[in-house]
């Protein structure tokens, strides 16, 4: 299907459901703008430099209308009042709740209060825009952040326009003034509906007032094992001197298509630690765009990605330095087994005003199968002299000397290989500061690396 034909289909599908989309989540005007912008630019194709590693074929078969809207139609209820299909399919297991974390769950992109904590807690407010719009919870009108303009100009963030047009709900998290302890929130997104029904649109809005602190766990899982089609959008706004630690776990179902755009703006002296572990989906692409807008802002972006079978795990990260003395650290560790392709394309752009920028990139890929593919690409674009930018990128196989050393101690080749893969991810995993979450992630990773019984005993 041509890009133009696809764009036309987006327009048609939007026209068919526009009346059913909640205005409180995204206004009709903004939805219309998004659809038109997408039609004008076209959907991405692999001919574009920063999309070349993505598997975009699932777009051709996608139904862009939200799954919840299609389901409401089928049931003959107004889409705006549709609640998620509960209970979840039998056999669905939710991850254990983390102590001290309020959890907010969304099913196919719509808030599921039955699976969630109370919406007001310790001065922190989390609301879902859909409910706010109906007056069900809070009357607060959430100010949409200044980060949004990025949607219009960045070609790599185009798929966010689909979310903007079709969004069904938003987890809006706002953390007020300086508190002693950081606020702790988990948002859990569960994809249930099959891709033949429609798309799931997870959407998160995070806003930190100056000097506030938040630890956010964002988890994406699937239920029912279907071919989900997921298109997420996360907007992050870290205020002056605020600190956000953000864990993102992409654990979509094995047959899911996962597309995701995260856009963040960091104010003066803001600190943002973003740690993503991507293991799920059949075709996955994450786009992250962080703007270092204030002097002295600090970003640590750590990404671990595992691909096996015929998975495609593609990550594009752009960090834009527009203010002086900001610091960026980018760490990527990816392992491709089977016939998988794992890619990380990390770009750092230092604009003229960004004197004193300090950026470091350490990107490493591990080829763990003869038919697997690893692509790691550091890109630097520097428009000022006074900067310190270092980067290292490697892609290779398991080290033969390390492997022989472990064998010579009696470990089987399977365990030795798994242990070395494990060790390879350590630079990212060791950055997880919550012991309970770290254990969950370690078990997820161990589970991804084949039947890991022998490894789990070591954990």
């Amino acid at each position, binding site marked *: 299907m041509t890009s133009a034909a696809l764009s036309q289909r987006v327009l048609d599908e939007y026209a068919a459901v526009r009346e059913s989309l909640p205005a409180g989540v995204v206004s009709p005007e903004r939805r219309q703008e998004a659809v038109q912008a997408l039609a004008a630019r076209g959907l991405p194709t692999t001919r574009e430099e920063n999309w070349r590693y993505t598997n975009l074929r699932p777009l051709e078969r996608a139904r862009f209308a939200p799954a919840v809207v299609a389901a409401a139609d089928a049931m003959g209820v107004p889409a705006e009042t549709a609640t998620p299909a509960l209970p979840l399919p039998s056999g669905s297991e939710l991850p254990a709740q983390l102590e001290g974390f309020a959890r907010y769950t969304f099913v196919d992109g719509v808030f599921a209060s039955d699976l969630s904590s109370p919406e007001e807690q310790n001065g922190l407010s989390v609301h879902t825009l859909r409910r706010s719009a109906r007056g069900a919870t809070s009357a607060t009108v959430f100010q949409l952040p200044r980060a949004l303009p990025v949607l219009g100009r960045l070609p790599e963030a185009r798929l966010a326009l689909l979310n903007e047009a079709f969004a069904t709900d938003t987890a809006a998290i706002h953390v007020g003034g300086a508190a002693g302890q950081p606020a702790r929130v988990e948002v859990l997104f569960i994809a249930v509906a099959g891709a033949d029904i429609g798309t799931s649109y997870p959407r998160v809005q995070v806003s930190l007032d100056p000097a506030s602190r938040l630890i956010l766990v964002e988890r994406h899982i699937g239920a029912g094992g279907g071919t989900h089609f997921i298109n997420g959008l996360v907007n992050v706004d870290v205020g002056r001197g605020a600190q956000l630690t953000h864990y993102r776990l992409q654990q979509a179902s094995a047959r899911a298509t996962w597309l995701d755009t995260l856009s963040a703006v960091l104010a003066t002296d803001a600190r943002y630690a973003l740690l993503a572990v991507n293991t799920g989906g059949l075709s996955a692409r994450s786009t992250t765009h962080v703007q270092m807008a204030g002097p002295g802002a600090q970003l640590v972006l750590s990404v671990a990605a595992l691909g096996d079978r015929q998975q495609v795990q593609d990550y594009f990260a752009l960090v834009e330095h527009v203010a002086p003395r900001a610091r960026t650290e980018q760490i990527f560790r990816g392992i491709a087994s089977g016939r998988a392709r794992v890619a990380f394309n990390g770009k750092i752009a230092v604009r003229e005003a960004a004197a004193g920028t300090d950026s470091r990139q350490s990107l490493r890929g591990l080829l763990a199968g003869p038919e697997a593919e690893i692509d790691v690409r550091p890109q630097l674009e520097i428009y000022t002299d006074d900067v310190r930018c270092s980067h290292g990128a490697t892609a290779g196989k398991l*080290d*033969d*000397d*390390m492997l*022989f*050393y*472990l*064998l*010579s*101690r*009696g*470990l*089987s*080749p399977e*365990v*030795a290989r798994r*242990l*070395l893969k*494990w*060790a*390879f*991810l*350590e*630079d990212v995993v060791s950055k997880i500061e919550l012991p309970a979450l770290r254990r969950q992630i370690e078990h997820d990773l161990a589970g991804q690396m084949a039947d890991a019984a022998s490894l789990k005993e*070591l954990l």
Partner: protein
Amino acid sequence: MLKIENLHVKVDGKEILKGLTLTVPTGEVHAVMGPNGSGKSTLANVLAGRPGYEITAGAVTFQGRDLLALAPEDRAREGVFLGFQYPVEIPGVNNVYLLKAAVNAARKHRGLEEVDAFEFLALVREKMRLMRMEESMLSRGVNEGFSGGEKKRNEVLQMLVLEPRLAILDETDSGLDIDALKVVANGVNTLRSAERSLVLVTHYQRLLDYIVPDHVHVLVKGRIARSGDKSLALELERRGYDWVTGEAA
């Protein structure tokens, strides 16, 4: 224990061992000395099963079994231990995990249950004291950031915990100062027993002051050129390798 007969080995198409014959009876300590390039490390690596060595002729039996037919991990589980000349660093693989995995692999092989975690840790701590190692090294990555001497001590620590039947120590003395050498030698000596054999591969006689061998062999150009008791090492020290290389030529 170990019987090597007429062993020929090629590396990258070049013959390094050219008919090496050596027998190490149970309970004995044998030193294999030789100048650089004589094939000492090749011998150690071939015995442990390192890939990249082409065995063109000869045989090696270990406790009556064909050692060369065993995979490296099976050699280890049967009780063959190689102390590496250059122990590799493996960041992210915890030292104590590796020790435990290694011990359990050998136990499983012998049909034994897994080691008790508390008893195991107590044993490891005891051996670490013997090797004068900081306990904090246990939770670090294997050899990660260790000095040369610490790596060698860690090799001997692993050997003490694994209690192999046959230990081959490849230049475990190189790069050690005299104090570290004594610690390492002391560790090795605690393992000497009537049921165990040791092969010390070394360039220098110095190590043999502290670990006194039953037999000394001089390896020249891929063959044992001369064998004797510990006095041979002293004579070598005095006269230099030219003495035997001259004879062998």
